[in-house]
């Protein structure tokens, strides 16, 4: 059976940091992004730039407001859900399994 495309060799061993991300394919992951953003979603695809395709994503944007009188820090987060998202890699800070609460 002739292959249409030259297939790149894929190994099953973990050799470099990107291989750790490969282990999370099709799993839910947590992504910390620049500008106080976080994503939680299912990893469908990624590349060497950390461009990613995430499914069933929840994006959390966190802002801090300082009360001018009391100087209290008020943390607010805004969430939204997106069914399928392409994420540009240069915004990604870290990738991890979903954080467990408690």
């Amino acid at each position, binding site marked *: 059976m002739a292959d249409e495309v030259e297939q790149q060799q894929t190994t099953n061993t973990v050799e470099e940091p990107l291989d750790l991300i490969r282990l999370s394919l099709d799993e839910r992951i947590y992504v910390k992004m620049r500008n106080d953003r976080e994503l939680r979603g299912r990893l469908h695809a990624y590349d060497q730039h950390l461009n990613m395709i995430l499914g069933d994503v929840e994006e959390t944007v966190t802002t801090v407001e300082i009360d001018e009188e009391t100087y209290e820090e008020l943390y607010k987060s805004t969430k939204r859900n997106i069914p399928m998202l392409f994420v540009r890699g240069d*915004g990604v800070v870290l990738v991890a399994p979903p954080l467990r609460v408690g």
Partner: protein
Amino acid sequence: IHLVAGFSSIRERTIAENSLVILLQGLQGQVTTVDLRDESTARGHVVNVDAFMNIRLKKVLHRDRRGRLTQLEDLFVTGRNVRYVHIPDHMDIMETIQGQLAKSHRVRNFAGGRKEYAKKKS
């Protein structure tokens, strides 16, 4: 030869085929929303995406970070300014990527060039 896959050079094609940008290139003709780095969004028809993720959109509704709307006939977004691209629900990712790769390989074979890649589908 007019390149079906729209690459300006072999270099661009290599860059695109080795990253997920190839999926974005399969979005040509679809309506999507692009979230920009400056917190604004642009929703419109994808005209073209190049290897550097520069995106050309037409018939765009642009919403700035304050929520103010502007209609634009044409919008060019540089790759660096892209934060997210919303993928339409109905799209099959693997199919799209494989389709894009097949397209550019068919062109190479058609140009009567060397047979680096295996036979076309018959």
